[in-house]
């Protein structure tokens, strides 16, 4: 390794240079992006883990109605709990590459219609049984079953045949999908003994920690799984996840040292917390975004000129500054950002343009009656304030936008996906295809903008089977442009993960794919004495 590269590496691992800058400058020395990413994570890991102790995370996003059934996980706390006791076939590593977990090898046939996963030998569940290829197939099958009400049902639906032979699992698809391995990283698809058919909420898996106590919405206590296969994870003897939904209490708890890690720091208090020498603020630019959605089949939003008028009248920078406290980036009216592989960063950023907005509004021939934007405080943090900013900038452009406040209670059933124009959020997905298939394909169940475009659908299906990354990138770019200029999505901002870590916690590696190192913070971090 050249001495210059070594120097860059030491800067980057000490946090004095950003990951992006490191990858860029290493690239100038002839190192590929993937290699540079791996080098950096290795360098960060060189910090020696300390064994033992009790590591505690305090989190928002849990209720006493939660369950341990991975199929039903929907909020942050169940996601974190399940990621601590369970493992998926693969996971998404920090630079958007595929990490191997229960599967130790992934391969496909030429047209990506058949995928083979070789199951790692000697992976043991907490109950002492060995994880087998049959368990993997049974798990995936359970998630296809209507009765399981799995959040991953849409993912496994495209698999026409699942087969276990020896230590190989073979999945056959109706149509080629180059992203299939990434879909297997979905947090619902935790491998359970016998597929979890008998007792889906048993909380028995093959993760680094086993559940010893679980009180939903309060506390889940774990201890180290003695026979865990991966020695690079599972450093603390015990870990705990406490549900602390109140922002102030959670922040006070990390300041007082009652917890070591916390999710969702309120952007408003980040500046204040920076003065605390015990707590570090960890940011990661993720794929999550806050949105205003217009249903393209409902008047007056069935008129693209009106949609464009509204899109042009959003002051995105103001929202990033005021709603996210600067902890995020501007959106461009399609649901993809640099957190995704194959993102096209050459698509021009949409800016506030009151004149253009007024022109589009005039062209739409709208009758001037109030355009209602329905919003509830729980649509996303700061949703009401964001809607008010939107109203102000739209009114300035002569568009009669009016905010209508709705109660949080029942918002997701009575307003979202029903009302013609409302506020919402998306958590993002590991790959572009999954995001688009979930919410923008004509036939998607959660097509909350009622966006239907035959050409868009065609390109999406074709991109799945396209194995040449350059060509796929071009196809995704075309889709992004279609959605940006024709869709019902107004995406003003992508929100960063903003999380807290006490300084005695080592091993933190920002992972934009999900909260608290994509759910692995407790398994990968350790407590420095």
């Amino acid at each position, binding site marked *: 390794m050249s001495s210059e590269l070594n120097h860059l590496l030491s800067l980057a691992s000490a946090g004095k240079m950003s990951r992006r800058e490191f990858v860029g400058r290493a690239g100038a020395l002839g190192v590929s992006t993937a290699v540079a990413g791996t080098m950096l994570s290795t360098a960060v890991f060189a910090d020696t883990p300390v064994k033992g102790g009790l590591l505690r995370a305090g989190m928002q996003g849990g209720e006493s109605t939660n*369950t341990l059934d991975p199929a039903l996980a929907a909020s942050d706390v169940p996601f974190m709990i399940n990621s601590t006791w369970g493992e998926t076939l693969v996971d998404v590593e920090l630079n958007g590459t595929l990490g191997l977990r229960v599967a130790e090898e992934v391969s496909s046939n030429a047209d990506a219609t058949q995928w083979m996963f070789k199951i790692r030998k000697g992976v043991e569940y907490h109950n002492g049984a060995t994880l087998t290829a049959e368990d993997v197939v049974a798990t995936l099958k359970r998630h296809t079953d209507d009765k399981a009400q799995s959040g991953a049902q849409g993912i496994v639906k495209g698999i026409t045949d699942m087969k276990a032979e020896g230590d190989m699992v073979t999945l056959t698809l109706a149509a080629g999908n180059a992203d299939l391995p990434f879909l297997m990283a979905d947090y619902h698809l935790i491998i359970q003994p016998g597929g979890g058919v008998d007792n889906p909420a048993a909380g028995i898996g093959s993760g680094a920690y086993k559940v010893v106590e679980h009180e939903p919405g309060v506390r889940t206590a774990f201890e180290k799984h003695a026979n865990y296969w991966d020695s690079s994870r599972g450093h603390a003897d015990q870990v705990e996840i406490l549900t602390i939904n109140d922002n102030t*209490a959670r922040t006070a*708890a990390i300041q007082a040292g009652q917890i070591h890690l916390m999710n969702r720091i309120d952007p408003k208090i980040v500046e204040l917390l920076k003065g605390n020498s015990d707590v570090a603020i960890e940011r990661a630019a993720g794929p999550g975004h806050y949105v205003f959605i217009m249903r393209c089949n409902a008047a007056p939003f069935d008129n693209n000129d009106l949609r464009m008028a509204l899109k042009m009248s959003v002051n995105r920078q103001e929202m990033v500054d005021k709603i996210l406290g600067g902890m995020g980036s501007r959106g461009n009216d399609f649901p993809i950002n640099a957190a995704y592989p194959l993102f096209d960063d050459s698509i021009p950023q949409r800016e506030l343009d009151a004149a253009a907005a007024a022109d589009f509004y005039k062209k739409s021939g709208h009758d001037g009656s109030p355009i209602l934007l329905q919003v509830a405080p729980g649509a996303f943090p700061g949703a009401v304030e964001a809607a008010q900013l939107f109203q102000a900038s739209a009114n300035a452009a002569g568009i009669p936008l009016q905010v209508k406040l709705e109660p949080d209670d029942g918002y*997701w059933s009575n307003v979202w996906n029903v009302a013609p124009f409302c506020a919402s959020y998306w958590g993002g997905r590991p790959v572009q295809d999954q995001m688009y298939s979930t919410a923008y394909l004509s036939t998607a169940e*959660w097509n909350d903008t009622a966006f239907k475009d035959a050409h868009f659908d065609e390109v999406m299906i074709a991109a799945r089977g396209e194995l040449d990354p350059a060509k796929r990138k071009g196809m995704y770019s075309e889709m992004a442009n279609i959605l940006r200029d024709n869709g019902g999505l107004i995406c003003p901002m992508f929100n960063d993960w903003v999380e807290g870590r006490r300084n005695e916690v080592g091993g933190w590696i920002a992972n934009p794919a999900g909260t608290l190192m994509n759910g692995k913070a407790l398994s990968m971090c350790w407590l420095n004495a």
Partner: protein
Amino acid sequence: MHPIIKLVVQRIALGLLLLLAVSVVIFLGVEMLPGDTAQAILGQSATAESLANLRESLGLNQNAPTRYFKWLGHALQGDLGKALTNQQDIAHAIGQRLGNTLFLAVCAGVIAVPLAIALGLIAARYNGRWPDKVISGVTLATISLPEFVAAYFVIYLLTQVIPILQPVSMVFPGMGFFEKLHAVALPVIVLVMVVLAHMMRMTRAAILNVMQSAYIETAELKGLSPMQVIWRHALPNAVAPIISVVVINLAYLVVGVVVVEVVFSYNALGQYLVDHVAKRDLPVVQAVGIIFAAVYIGLNILADLIGIIANPRLRHPK
């Protein structure tokens, strides 16, 4: 039958009838909320297909009266059923949480009740002078603060400025008694602040009321000290109104402290109820609602009875 026993039986029977009525009201209330359990559970991830599946597996397809009487039948046999949302056994979950609720209420009550009465007596003794004014002023100030403001204030003061307590009060099995006391110290302080004034002022008013009577003058004239007069002669005759206010505050400590529970992440019944209302989990809402109603009704019956026993005129009705 002794009139008191008759009265007790009567009150308890009425209380049970009232509970039945409460269960109907709760059931209707949850029915009237928009959206059903299946919608609430699946939230943003609901699809028509998954909704239909879930409704069927939860038994939501039956009509409302059928579901109510089914629930009632099981509840009368002591079977509270399972939570619709996560299939947890309700009796078990409630048992743990009820214990925590009572623990917090008892800790706060044990401090607040004697303190309030003592302060009330002192305020009455020094009526209109500075101790009275200080006590009234301070307690009125603490009751006027919204609970969460008081909570944030003590969190800031006692975990950040003087870090002797912990901001998160969760208790769980396996903790020792003193460990638990340490954990709930902050919410107890807040609750004491909140309930103190009401009881203190009622004690003061009741005592001052009795102090106008002729027999108090007699007691003073025979040379008793002011504190002895209050303690021996005024307090026993002022006990009925004081008890009824104390009981109302105790009931509040059991059923009304959800804001404090949330701020301190204390795992008691209030938070449990709110979570399940949000998910329209009817069996849990019913069960917790009934428990809360029973506590309220029970404590009120108790207050009535103590009032009657303490008052000879009511004890021996003509």
